């Protein structure tokens, strides 16, 4: 790892310099809400944010995309080879990408995810946790890989960590913006990280997987009573990988596109099979399956989105507390 220092008043020049590495996607504030969008100029970007509603995952795994074109039964790939820069990704979202890598890059490799993540320069950014965050419990508070460059906000400068050759090329490319790191900078960096650590709730999640399996239907009924089967909790989750595939026909009825779109295990079609049988018919079964997938198989990064954006106020930490009673 290489350590550098970037003064805050240099951040705009740094932002302009990274455009040469690809299309820049960054957290943009639009009517009070943060979302990862293409950002041309620095004025649109807001680097002080707690969480974006839709995780940066959508830049690498678009919510809905055509994966194949077909004419009669002849199929052609539709692959995105655009170079991208993902600026302002928090620790938890970077670790979420590492979890997605374990799924999509494992043979048989998903080339759509592979081609995009390969061409994306990831620049991490320290976060401002609130009391919905529980990344301490899911061991996703701090990461030392999964990114090219990491900017830690230490007041009037960014403490910069460079982890990959590509990251190094970026810093070399705009050498004049960076300075050597001295003892004092390092202390400020550690102090900032300590403060960030205090702001996150502690919660231990040992034994959760078995507890989820041990609790019976009635337990899950209590927590799924308010659930509206709307799927929001999974659609905002950075580690959710489920997708649905469907075809669309064009005018000549012979050619068309095969689409892939985000799917949710909280919706009916997820467990539905051709002859009408549904393996997760009732809402409590779906909630239990979601908890099992996230906390049972340690595929949660504690970002709190599923609780913040649940319209009926179902709180994942409340369920964890009840599980451990």
């Amino acid at each position, binding site marked *: 790892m290489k350590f550098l220092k970037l003064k805050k008043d240099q951040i705009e020049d740094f932002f302009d310099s990274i455009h040469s590495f690809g299309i820049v996607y960054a957290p943009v504030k639009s009517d*009070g*809400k943060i*979302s990862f969008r293409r950002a041309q100029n620095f004025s649109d970007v807001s680097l002080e944010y707690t969480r974006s*509603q*839709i995780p940066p995952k959508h830049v690498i795994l678009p*919510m*809905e995309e055509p994966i194949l074109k077909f004419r009669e039964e002849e199929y052609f790939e539709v692959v995105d080879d655009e170079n991208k820069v993902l600026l302002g990704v928090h620790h938890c979202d970077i670790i979420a990408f590492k979890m997605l890598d374990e799924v999509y890059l494992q043979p048989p490799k998903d080339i759509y995810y592979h081609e995009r993540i390969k061409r994306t320069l990831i620049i991490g950014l320290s976060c401002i946790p609130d009391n919905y965050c529980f990344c301490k419990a899911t061991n996703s508070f701090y990461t030392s890989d999964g990114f090219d460059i990491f900017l830690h906000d230490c007041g009037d400068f960014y403490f910069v960590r460079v982890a990959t050759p590509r990251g190094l090329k970026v810093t070399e490319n705009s050498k004049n913006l960076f300075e050597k790191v001295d003892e004092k900078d390092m202390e400020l960096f550690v102090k900032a990280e300590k403060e960030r650590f205090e702001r996150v709730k502690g919660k231990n999640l040992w034994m959760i997987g078995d507890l989820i399996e041990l609790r019976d239907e009635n337990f899950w009924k209590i927590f799924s*009573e*308010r*659930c*509206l*089967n*709307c*799927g*929001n909790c999974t*659609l*905002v989750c950075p580690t959710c990988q489920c997708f649905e595939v*469907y075809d*669309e*026909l*064009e*005018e000549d*009825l012979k050619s068309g596109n095969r689409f892939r*779109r*985000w799917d*949710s295990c909280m*919706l*009916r*079609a997820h467990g*539905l099979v051709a002859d009408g049988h549904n393996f997760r018919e009732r*809402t409590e079964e779906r909630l239990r399956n979601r908890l099992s997938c996230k906390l049972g198989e340690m595929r949660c990064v504690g970002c709190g989105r599923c609780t913040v*954006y649940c*319209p*009926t106020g179902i709180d994942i930490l409340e369920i964890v507390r009840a599980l451990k009673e």
Partner: protein
Amino acid sequence: MKPKIGILGFTGCAGCQLMILNLEDELLDIFKRIKLVSFQMASSEMKDEKLDIAFVEGSITTEEQKKELEKIRKKSKILVAIGNCATLGGVQALSNGIKSSREMMKEVYGGEFWRLMDSKPLSEFVEVDFELFGCPIEKQEFLEMIRFLLRGFIPLKRDYPVCLECKLKDNECILLEKRICLGPLTVAGCGARCPSLGLECLGCRGVIEGEARLESAIKIFEDAGVSAEDVKKIFRIFSANYPDILEVKS
């Protein structure tokens, strides 16, 4: 041999027939592939032939319409109910049950001039093969369905709530602002048109059959400070023929 298509309508505002005419770019291409046997709003040629596909809009409110619908069913291989009127009874179904249409007519027209009954969807009287929801229907969905049908495939059915499309557009959830949005109960397909404009979903595409969580919804809306009576009134605008939401609660 070109499939014979009929586009017919009963009680309603003919908005769904108009939406088909609003497919300005694709309209002529579709009509080239089919033989338009009857399209009352757009063509004076009304032949009473056998149909391969009948798109029927509007709800049934009179005996004559019921007989006419049964005639259409007999002469059509595939019958598609298009629009909220045809699939759920339309806004006019708001008068169902509360005051029988005969009473209302006496009270307002001063006499019973023609036999009227509660506004019912087509599925109340005949077997409906496919359905296009919404008030009015979505142009894209009609286009998608007619292409699947012309190719001989079973059309794609959207079996998930409006919320999925709303989140795909990165909208802020209106329910979080304690306003009654029927999105989670309503069949998707409109691309969350109203929430994307900052407005509550009125459920014009009808309830997701057997999946919508009505009891939970009432609880949530009551916590948001809205009386069950008001919830029912809004719910009935487009789903009056759906079993009474308040009974569901008990």
